[in-house]
């Protein structure tokens, strides 16, 4: 098992102690602890390409959360450790500190110090969790938000780089040649000690929510370079370049329509390039006189590196539907397909979830990769169609 956060273990242990001390004067009606405990099963449709891989996998995870606030809610402390144990993949058995933050809020500013997740580029992807890249590793940061009439400016100082996690040789949903995460290469002479910085301005302008950001530092997205492993076997090693990236995100909310555009310009990782995703979600509310809503989604992904891009999303169309039952169990279903318009295959995805009783949530994920040619960046997934079932207990 690997502790994903290297090098800051002693400090986090000290803070765990601080947490348990803080726990003592718990509020009259609520415990400061909550969280999720889950069991996940994955079944793969095809036999693996690599004999070290497996046809099915079981795994459990625990994500407790400690939260305390004082001075009338102006100060707060949050601690969210995360632990997963995986049946087969030693790299997927991992722990992380998702959050360990002190927050001070004032009228015109908010200061956050510690380990946190913010939704955009500055968090590293915890790729062993899920290929959808929505799971992120906690990032150490100092974040000052300046709140003004003309918008909010977030300033980030990011000490301590987090390496991306990759499935190990026994894990599915990986590159055909496994990634050796023990030998990362950094462009920066300071390696993973480089202090990165980011700034973001965001504002609401009527129906429009707008954000402009800039990031300067070690890219969270590595390039994967071929190399030889310890026993002379081929491996991929991640190379982390120093990049500058400017981003724009816009959402327009007009009646039943949500229009979205996210664009970025990146330099420092080969030639400079521009990538963008834009699209809409149109929702039919109360379909057929019921309480159910049906959303129709269309998104286009572009990358001006074209087929040379390391990403599978360089000229791709996403079409999907979101069904929300609005029932007591909060039943939801999202189905969609990503079609590569350059002939690099299609990706089909179905996700559904439903609350069981008051404390359990059951969810399923069905994913299929179709007609992926050996030249495509996602070729490693071509035999990895899978079904995932998860039961999560919330406490």
């Amino acid at each position, binding site marked *: 098992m690997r502790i994903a956060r290297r090098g800051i273990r002693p400090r986090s242990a000290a803070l765990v102690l601080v947490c348990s001390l803080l726990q003592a004067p718990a509020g009259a009606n609520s415990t400061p602890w*909550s969280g*999720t405990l889950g069991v996940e099963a994955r079944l793969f449709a095809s036999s693996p390409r690599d004999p070290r891989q497996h046809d099915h996998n079981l795994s459990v995870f625990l994500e407790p959360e400690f*939260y305390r*606030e004082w001075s009338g*809610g102006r100060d*707060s402390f949050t601690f969210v450790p995360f632990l997963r144990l995986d049946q087969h993949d030693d790299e997927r058995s991992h722990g992380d500190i998702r959050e360990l933050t002190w*927050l001070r*809020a004032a*009228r015109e500013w*908010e200061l956050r110090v510690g380990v*946190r*997740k*913010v*939704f955009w580029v500055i968090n590293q992807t915890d790729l062993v969790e899920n290929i959808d890249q*929505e799971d992120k590793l906690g990032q150490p940061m100092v974040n000052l*938000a300046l*709140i003004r009439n003309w918008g*909010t400016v977030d300033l980030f100082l990011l000490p301590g780089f987090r390496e991306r996690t990759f499935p190990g040789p026994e894990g599915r949903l990986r590159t055909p040649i496994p990634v050796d995460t023990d030998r990362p290469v950094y462009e920066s002479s300071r390696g993973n000690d480089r202090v990165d910085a980011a700034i973001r301005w*965001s504002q*609401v302008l009527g*129906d429009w*929510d707008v954000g402009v950001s800039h990031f300067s530092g070690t890219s969270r997205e590595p390039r994967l370079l071929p190399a030889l492993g310890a026993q002379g076997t081929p491996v991929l090693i991640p190379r982390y370049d120093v990049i500058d990236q400017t981003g724009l995100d816009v*959402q327009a*909310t007009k*009646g*039943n*329509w*949500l229009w979205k555009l996210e664009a970025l310009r990146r330099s420092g990782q080969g030639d400079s390039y521009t990538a963008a995703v834009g699209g809409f979600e149109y*929702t039919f*509310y*109360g379909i057929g006189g019921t*309480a159910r*809503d049906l959303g129709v989604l269309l998104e286009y992904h572009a990358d001006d590196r074209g087929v040379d891009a390391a990403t599978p999303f360089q000229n791709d169309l996403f079409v999907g539907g979101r069904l929300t039952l*609005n*029932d*007591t*169990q*909060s039943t939801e279903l999202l189905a969609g397909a990503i079609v590569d318009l350059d002939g690099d295959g299609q990706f089909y995805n179905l996700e559904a979830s439903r*609350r069981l009783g*008051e*404390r359990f*949530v059951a969810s399923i994920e069905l994913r299929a990769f179709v007609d992926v040619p050996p030249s495509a960046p996602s070729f490693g997934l071509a035999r990895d169609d899978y079904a995932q079932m998860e039961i*999560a207990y*919330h*406490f």
Partner: protein
Amino acid sequence: MKKWLILIPLWILFLPDAWAETPEEKGLRLAIEMDHRNEGWVSQEADMRMILRNKQGQESIREIRSRTLEVPGDGDKGLSIFDTPADVKGTAFLSYTHATRPDDQWLYLPALKRVKRIASANKSGPFMGSEFAYEDLTSQEVAKYTYKWLRDEPIEGRDCYTVERYPAYENSGYTRQIAWVDKDMYQPLKIEFYDRKNALLKTLTFRDYKQYLEKYWRADVMDMINHQTGKSTRLLWSNYQFKTGLSDRDFDRNSLKRAR
């Protein structure tokens, strides 16, 4: 709706006989009076317990803390924080309600650490799977409806004005509502909701009104019964507090992100 407050009494002065008002004029006058009597509470905080009951009588509980800021001349700003069910704990909902144009709404999802602007065209959609629609729970501005006084009729021994009102905003699930407004409190005791086909859909009953700051009446219990599905939702309100020092800053996207 300050503008109306100034204009209406002036306009009434120029009528040959102020008492010869039409049922529509009387309905509007009552709505303005209800609005007027509920002005000046500045900010409000309360805890809400929502009990959802299906046809078979099975219950499901949701607990929400609500904070509201009075916005003179427009709809109120609201922030709702979900405590149960456990899987949505920490989810927060921010809304800027408006009289006739669409509300602005944002949702904070703790799992994604992300504030999402959400469409507000779903006024008739159920709130948290309950029998309350979003439009039932947002602030009741005078300009949201047109009105017609029907009759005076007592309910459970209390004298009421019975007023019919017609949504003036888009995307409502109702053709009309009939409200029984208590003559002393100027607060509704009962509202009937008629669906788009003009059939009786739901009845909302208000119980256990209490007065705060010697002026503002709030019901502790609100029962919504859906006649077409047999399902019902009870709202239990507690810990009402007023003028708690909340400001615009407590109702922005930054405060939404850290609401707990």
